[in-house]
Structures are given as C-alpha cells and as structure tokens.
C-alpha cells in the first residue's frame, strides 16, 4: 500500500464516526458471543479479516470456518496466503471445508456453495450446536446486501450477524492499517487499477462474474492461473 493511502487510513481511524462504528461492532459481537455458540465465516478478504480480528479479541478460541473453492477458483498459493493471514491474526481453531465437486467439475462448478455449504455444512454445524455466524457483509456493497444485513437472516437455524453492516470501505481499511493487520497481496495488485474503494476479493476466473468483466481483469493480472482448468 502506498504511503499516502496508509496516512489517509490512519487519519480516518481517528475520526469520531469511525470510533462509534467500531464500538458498535464490538458491542454486537460481545452480545452475540454471550448468547450463542458462534463461529466466524472467513473468506480471506478484507472485511472478514476485520471481523475475525474483532471476534478473536473477545474470544480467541472461536471456530473459524473457511470455505475452499478448489484450486481452479482459488489457486493454491492464494489459499496458503489466506491461511497464513488467519494464523497471523491469531486463529487457533481453523476449520477448512470444501466439496469434491470443485475437483470434479473445475470451473464448471456452479452454485456448489449453495448446495454444499448451505445445504449440507450449515445443517451439520447446527447439529454441532452452533447458533450464530459472524459475516463480513456491509450494506454499502450492494442493495441486496443492504437488505440482507437489515433483515437479520436465520439460515437453517443459524443467525447471521454482520458487525460491519454500517461500515464503509474507508472504515475497513482504517481498521486494517491502524491495527497493522496483514491482508492479501491481491488488494495491492488490484487496487492499483481498480482503486482501494472498489477492489473486492472474489474467486478468480469465475463464470459467475464473467458478465461484469472480472475475467478480463483476472486475465491481465492473474494470467498464470488462467488455464488451470485444462
């Protein structure tokens, strides 16, 4: 990250509004932790890293769930970086789940997350006693997400809590920079072109995002992983 952006985010971290949002998120987390058996859904992106850090400060033994999209959507090097970041942040109880369909179907594996994670894993977690999940969703991201965080969803008996629901991209980066948290090198690469406000971490060469030109950008920046399917 360039120095000017680091300074910008550090200054933003002193903002009163940011401090209030941070306190709000901490209250939400501590309340949920006291009421339910919780886990953190961690993708490796900036938002889930912030949620992870906030939760770990209150409960260092919390279960952290990472969904592995398989090497065709998430190259091995990136997966290793994600796990490395989780360890650096202080995760003790990391659980990595995946589906064989990713290996079998490669980049033709569509809607596997819905079928496997929500259809099989979430009911399994419910059986294990989990009643609450911390997600890094923000209302700012899209209208669909705005509605999702507004109407707290209970999915297969597990309540979704989004501590960053009212945070902006500036708040998220301010938290990362002021707490000196590690983040994926993906952001440094993509932010140079897309900007720090628009950079998102999603699966690479995913047909779901092809319509929006994600593959065009992945093709230029992550070209070494383009033909992993073959």
């Amino acid at each position, binding site marked *: 990250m360039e120095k000017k952006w680091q300074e910008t985010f550090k200054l933003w971290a002193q903002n009163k509004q940011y401090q209030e949002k941070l306190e709000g998120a901490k209250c939400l987390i501590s309340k949920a932790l006291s009421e339910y058996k919780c886990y953190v859904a961690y993708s490796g992106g900036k938002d889930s890293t912030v949620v992870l850090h906030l939760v770990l400060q209150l409960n260092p033994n919390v279960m952290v769930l990472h969904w592995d999209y398989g090497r065709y959507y998430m190259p091995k090097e990136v997966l290793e970086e994600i796990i490395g970041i989780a360890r650096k942040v202080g995760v003790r109880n990391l659980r990595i789940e995946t589906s064989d369909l990713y290996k079998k179907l490669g980049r033709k594996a569509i809607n596997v997350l819905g079928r496997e994670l929500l259809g099989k894993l979430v009911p399994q977690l419910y059986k294990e006693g989990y009643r609450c999940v911390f997600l890094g969703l923000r209302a700012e991201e899209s209208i669909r997400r705005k509605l999702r965080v507004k109407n707290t969803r209970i999915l297969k008996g597990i309540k979704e809590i989004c501590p960053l629901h009212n945070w902006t991209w500036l708040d998220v980066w301010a938290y990362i920079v002021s707490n000196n948290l590690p983040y994926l090198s993906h952001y440094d690469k993509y932010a140079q072109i897309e900007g720090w406000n628009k950079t998102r971490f999603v699966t690479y060469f995913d047909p779901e995002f092809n319509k*929006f030109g994600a593959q*065009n950008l992945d093709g230029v920046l992550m070209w070494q992983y383009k033909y992993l399917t*073959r």
Partner: protein
Amino acid sequence: MINIQKEINYFKRKMLTYRHKFYQWQPFKITFYLSSPIALNHPWLHFDGLIAHLSLLYVLGNDFYLLPAKFPLSLVLKDGKGPILPLKKTGQLWHASVSILEPYKIYLETLYKRFEDRFCAQKKKIRRGSGYFKDYAMKTPYISARTCTFYAVGDIEAVAKLCTMIVGLGNETRIGFGAIRDFVLEPTDKDYSIVKDGKAMRPIPKRFLRRWAKLVPLAWTPPYWARDRIELCAPPFTEVELGEEMARDI
C-alpha cells in the same frame, strides 16, 4: 453433424487454395504505432496468432465471419496442406514473439452493455432492469501504449501485405480501442523472435527447453483459445535456455 462436415469441407477447399510457395525467411521487427489505448484480457498479444487470423481473413474474405464458432480448423487440416503462415517454423514453434507494449501501464474502463433490438426478435415489452436483458457494466482493462512491437522471422513482403488489413489490435476495436496509426517493418541482424538476451519472447513449451526459471500452463501455438494448445510453458520475459535442437535452428 452432416451439415458441420459440409461446412468444414467448404472451408478446407478454400484454405487449400492459399499457399505461399517461395518464402525468403528474414528476421525482422514490426512496430505498430497506436493512436488509442489497447484493450486486452491477457498481458500480451501473439504475433503468430495475429498473422494466422489475418491469413484466414485474406483467404476466406467475407466467409471468415461464417466460420464454425470456436472450432480450430487446423484440426481437420491434418494433411499439412493447411494455410501456411508467412512465418518460419522450427519443430512446431513459430518464430514470432509476443507484444512488447510501451509504455505499459494498465487502466480500467467500464463499458455499459445495454439492450439492443438485435438481441430479441419478438415484439413485446423488454425488462432492462432485471432478468435476461438486464443492462450491466463490464470492466475492461486497457493499456495506454504508444507502440506495440513484435519480433519475428518470416517473409517480410507477405507479412507487410497482411498487416495492411489490420484496423486495430486487441479487444473492443469496434469502439475505437487499439487503433493503428501506422506500422514499420525493419529487418534485424539476429532472430529475437523466440529468445532475446536469455529471456523468452513467447510461450515456449518445456520440451523445447533445457533450463527455465518458471513454468506455467499456457497456449503456445495458434489458435490460442483452443484447449489442446495448452501446455506447460516458460512464460514470456522469463529466463530460459533452449534445448540443443531448437538452439541449433535459431
């Protein structure tokens, strides 16, 4: 199936009429001067791919646009009488480098894809806010290069003739990206099309190399979109040492 075979035979007949007989191989450098940024979905362009495209365009004329979609016709032209490019070939490797874009700085543009009448023949109300015909924004990276240079070995005259047909390089040329102002062909003393200063100038399959710094699955011969052309290759601009057979022919 019968119709596809008929189509293939038609194109095959037409292609076989195009053959260069007397090539005078000469190493050269071709520089395209661009008047607008070049939109790409890969970090480089392949000169052999460009020449293969132009050769087909030249031999098929308007029929080029009727070619069976995403079907490498070279697969059905296994007898070796297919369209021969005016470029030198060693083993199976064309002597043609990838693009060297200068300056190389990537930017991002958003193109707005909107509904057009031609997408739908039926006369009824179209919903553009959601569903199948929804308008959407698409990210398009572009490089604000002034020049695009390639190194190759081939028949300079034939290449120059084909290159006059190019309107633009890269993607989205129909909306003005990659427009060519001019191009200059200069003979060079040495062949820099495969290796230059110990660095690969194009994707080179592992089997042609003795040493390499990095290996990545890449397409290495045209058509570059065909799956069967993908192999473990040394990517362009990485350090390599050619195998004996290849090194002798260059």
